[in-house]
């Protein structure tokens, strides 16, 4: 059954990923991304990582893609972009190289590791043992990785404050320009 679930979810994830790249309409692309994220959540469930699955949906599908949609809707999606012009020269060649490189790394990792593609569940069960997912993650986060955790929190806070400061500056300089033009 594990394998069957994996195959179905992998198909959903891949179809969603293709949809993100190929969809003409940005909103359809964002919805395909949601499909991919849901497929990944079920894959996490399949590996007994319940908490990760829930967080995947709450954070990625529930917050991040909603934010994407917000931006897309507010900017308007009626304008079709001209695909024949590259915004940055050499962008497509670079993207192809980076994509192929990442794919190669992933394949190399799968081939070299002794996990194998279809027996990962036994491994996660061994790790999770008798405690719940939540306790495992909390134990790891607040003991071994506490500095990394706190540093990430600080980084996020700084980026939020930075974003607010920058957006306020820009709005102000725009207004100043407008008043200057009016005068």
């Amino acid at each position: 059954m594990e394998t069957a679930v994996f195959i179905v979810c992998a198909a959903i994830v891949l179809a969603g990923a293709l949809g993100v790249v190929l969809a003409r309409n940005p909103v359809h692309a964002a919805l395909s991304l949601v499909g991919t994220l849901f497929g990944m959540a079920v894959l996490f469930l399949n590996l007994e990582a319940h908490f990760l699955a829930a967080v995947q949906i709450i954070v990625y599908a529930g917050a991040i893609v909603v934010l994407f949609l917000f931006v897309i809707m507010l900017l308007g999606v009626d304008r079709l972009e001209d695909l024949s012009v590259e915004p940055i020269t050499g962008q497509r060649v670079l993207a192809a190289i980076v994509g192929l490189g990442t794919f190669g790394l992933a394949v190399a990792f799968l081939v070299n590791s002794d996990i194998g593609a279809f027996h990962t569940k036994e491994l996660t069960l061994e790790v999770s043992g008798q405690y719940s997912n939540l306790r495992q993650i909390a134990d790891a986060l607040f003991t071994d990785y506490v500095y990394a955790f706190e540093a990430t929190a600080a980084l996020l806070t700084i980026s939020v404050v930075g974003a607010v400061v920058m957006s306020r500056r820009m709005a102000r300089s725009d207004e100043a320009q407008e008043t200057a033009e009016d005068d």
Partner: protein
Amino acid sequence: MIVGVPLPGPTVFGLDPLYTGGVGLAEVLITLFKVGVAFALLMVAVMLMIWFERKVISDMQNRIGPNLAGPFGILQTLADGIKLFFKEDLIPEKSDRLVFKLAPYLSLVPAFLVFAVVPVGGNFSGGNGRVSLFGHETFLQVADPPVGILLVLAMSSVAVYGVMLAGWSSGSKYPLLASVRASAQMVSYEAALGLSLAAVLLKSGSLSTNQIVSEQSVWNWNLWVTWVVPMVIFLIAATAELNRPPFDLVEAEQELVGGFHTEYSSIRFALFYLAEFMNMITMSAIVVTLFLGGPNGPDFTSVGWLSGVLWFFVKLMLFLFFFVWLRATLPRFRYDQLMDLGWKLLIPLSLGWLLVLASYDVAGDRGWNRAAAVIVALAIMAALASLLALALRAARQRRELDPQGEFV
């Protein structure tokens, strides 16, 4: 799956004792039965709820309300449903057809799924919530996943898509404005919802809804275990999350025609209507589960599972009436008031309360004086709150002195 070999990890199907002995035909049938009963129960409940709301509101407004279809007009919803079903289904010319058709289901399905984790009955005083169904031990809930209550948060965040995409795909400006408004509101209040929930999780020590209810048996309800405030915050945030009055800015008729579903008609409109009321029922059920001990209560019947179901029903009705009462009495909030309430009051308050509860618990674990720990925690919070208030006041004064923001 190879037949005869038990699954290595039973938790894929949740913690329900039904699945501990492997999954055969009987287990599948019982699960399907539970799903069917939950579905039927919700549909009938929605039908009665719409009638109940109309009747109660008309009573409060000194009117009679629906009184023609069936005794006391109880079949009015059915009549309305049939009428909507046979109306012409219009799809606007400028709409995004695929998304337009998808959106109502994105509203409806999460509302159903949330109900799956609500324990509607069972004897929690000694039996750990187990009941015997066709000779198998099981819980009176469709599923008990280990992440339990997180599923509720996940589904309420998925429900945002229904509203958002409905507004956008209509290809019309009022629905778009309403949906941007609504999704901003729902995303903002999700934070307060989650933080007040965290207080419950701190006390219960588990995410599973069955465990949360078991911890509250029989009179150990989270309402007083978490000292009332989280429940008040949860109720306010839930009302905003449901887009119910006084937070129903999605449907502000005077400004937005009809809200995000202006362009919807016929059965698709009925689906949104259904989802709205279903969400109200499931959210009330979640409040009962989290704060009022779910089916817990003194056993007064000879049949084991009956009193639990009855208690659950009584508590559920309390909240359903509460929501109707709010709608009948409170005027709508202004949008900036809504955002101020959510971000500047509810989120800091629920976070602070969580920290006070945590300090109380830690003091107990370490053998410190609990009262002293709480007082110190409260003093620190008060200092931080006054700093925040000072900063807000300074910012406001500066804005008033320099409205263009030129001299920063």
